[in-house]
């Protein structure tokens, strides 16, 4: 395990209690359902987690597992509706003692970009092609600092570009997004997100659209900035490798639900859910000399309209028969599998540990 984090460090994850938020960010029973012509798409279905300032949470899952929808719902960006129409959102999102789902949209707008900010996957499409990078950063700053002059905001923009490692920031501030390289563009995007010192930063697949060589630089930058600003960070990714280095805690999503969560070290050392095993097996590793072929998770992600009965993962689970039929009939709930480590799986714990140590671990 290349992870250097001390496994006894306090975890940012905790079990949500019945009342009051326990973390800086607390998500409780979040449900995001899109009514479509084909039926109700349950993109997120009962998600719980909480996150402290200064901590990083990695949300991992395949496309369609609900991870991006989760982040957009926290930001309140799903209220405007999407191409699929406006979703029904229920549950609670507490940010610094304030509930956002039921809050006034204008209040949430004021928090957006100021207290919580977001970095998107593809910085080329996520920035307006007709405005300079500087204009776009200045605009974000002035939206939350109404009194500042353009000149002050510009100085701030240059300062931020410098901070995220863009050379000649006083010149690049007047450049257009298409004049930046992919990595520089994502740095500018990060500068834009951080211009108001947000205490929550959500990075939605921040490195997916980037060159492999640039990916590590961007992740390092996010880590450095987090240390500097002490903000809470959520990293959303399909790649466990991305969060392995960065996250304090990891939450694995499948079919709109959390199927396993826990401190990163624990989750990598003794993953509990067969789906997490699959994710680990399909992750290329450079720190192992003898590696067999990558093992993909067989099958396709579940339909979010007709979610498989019982455990949503059972059609793809190679060990489903060990549950004695419960996998198709009964919804598994998150159960404690270790200190602050939870997994939702019907396979008896003893069987799971045996399979992991005998079959899975040697292949990883």
């Amino acid at each position, binding site marked *: 395990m290349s992870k250097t984090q001390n496994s006894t460090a306090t975890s940012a994850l905790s079990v949500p209690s019945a009342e009051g938020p326990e973390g800086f960010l607390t998500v409780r029973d979040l449900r995001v359902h899109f009514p479509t012509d084909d039926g109700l798409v349950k993109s997120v279905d009962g998600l719980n987690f909480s996150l402290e300032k200064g901590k990083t949470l990695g949300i991992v899952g395949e496309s369609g597992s609900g991870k991006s929808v989760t982040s957009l719902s926290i930001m309140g*960006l799903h209220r405007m509706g999407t191409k699929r129409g406006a979703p029904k959102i229920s549950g609670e999102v507490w940010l610094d003692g304030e509930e956002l789902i039921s809050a006034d949209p204008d209040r949430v707008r004021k928090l957006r970009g100021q207290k919580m*900010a977001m970095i998107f996957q593809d910085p080329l499409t*996520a920035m307006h092609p007709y405005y300079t990078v500087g204009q776009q950063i200045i605009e974000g700053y002035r939206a939350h600092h109404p009194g500042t002059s353009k000149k002050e905001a510009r100085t701030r923009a240059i300062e931020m570009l410098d901070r995220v490692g863009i050379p000649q920031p006083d010149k690049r501030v007047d450049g257009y997004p298409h004049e930046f390289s992919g990595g520089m563009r994502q740095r500018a995007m990060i500068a834009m997100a951080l211009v108001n010192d947000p205490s929550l930063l959500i990075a939605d697949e921040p490195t997916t659209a980037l060159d492999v060589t640039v990916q590590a630089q961007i992740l390092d930058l996010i880590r450095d900035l987090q240390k500097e600003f002490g903000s809470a960070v959520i990293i959303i990714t399909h790649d466990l490798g991305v969060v392995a280095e960065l996250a304090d805690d990891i939450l694995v999503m499948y079919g709109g639900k959390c199927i396993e969560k826990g401190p990163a070290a624990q989750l990598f050392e003794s993953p509990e859910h067969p789906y997490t095993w699959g994710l680990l097996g399909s992750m290329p590793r450079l720190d192992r000399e003898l590696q067999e072929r990558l093992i993909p998770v067989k099958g396709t992600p579940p339909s979010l309209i007709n979610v498989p009965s019982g455990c949503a993962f059972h059609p793809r689970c190679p060990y489903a028969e060990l549950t004695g039929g419960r996998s198709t009939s009964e919804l598994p709930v998150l159960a404690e599998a270790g200190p602050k480590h939870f997994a939702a799986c019907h396979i008896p714990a003893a069987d799971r540990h045996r399979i992991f140590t005998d079959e899975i671990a040697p292949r990883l």
Partner: protein
Amino acid sequence: MLVYFIRRLVNVVAMLLVVSAVTFGIFFMVPKLTGSDPALLYVGKIADKAAIEGIRHKMGLDKSIIEQYFLFLKGLFVGRDYSTGVDVTHCSAPCFGYSFKTEQEVWPLLLDRLGVTASLAAGAAVLWLVFGTLTGVVSALKRRTLLDRFTMTTALAGVSLPIYFTGMISIAIFVHQLGWFPNGYVELAKDPVAWFQNLVLPWVTLAFLYAATYARLTRATLLEVLGEDYIRTARAKGLGERTVIGKHAMRSTLTPILTVFGMDLGGLIGGAVLTETTYNFRGLGYEAVAAISASDLPVIMGVTLFAGFFIILANLLVDVLYAVVDPRVRLA
């Protein structure tokens, strides 16, 4: 940028040469092939052989088609002398020749008619641009509501109904029955108020047709733009909806509209044939129709080249403006 501009200007001239060659070819060669004689058209019905020959010589119609074309081009740039051997008529540049029908010079005629068409096109353009895009924006923002369905149905009607139908109906109601507007064109310089009054109805009729297209285009483009990632980013920054729509979304939405607008306006200044005919305005379009039915070849040549010039010019302007609007377009 300058190099680009010069290159485009050369391009414009080349395009106009092609247009003129093709038009010249069609309108001067076809009569020759079908046996009708341009000289005969010029002199009219009562003429003896000598007079026809004289005209043929004077107009240069006895020369080869290639020679005639170059004489025509020469006339455009430096002017041209029409000589019967005895008396010489000088036609100064740009010389489009003389109308077969009225024996007037074509160029002053074109300039005169241009005023009518430009008045019509400019007023209508302002109307359709403002109302078309506004309707489109409202429709997009209120999509799937009753208002959206109503405006889009109206727009569909606007696109489908031809000018001669809406024009005739509007004349019947507003000119003849209600008597709100007079009919016929009055020059701006002569009487600005009458100019305006007489133009209101044609403006609205013409604008209705175009506004419908623009409303649909604006609606579709804005809906597409609203789905873009950078709109989500703008919202994620905490900008108000007014800024998100009015600044971020509209800037991108207006780009394709600008393109279409340039072409439409360019084409329209070359002659709003149906509108002018319906409202009996003697503009370029009206003149074109009259010239074609009278086989008045020099006038047809003039109107065609004139229209071609405006369309090509509008295209050039659109291309240049595009680079101003969209920084990704590099002019080089």
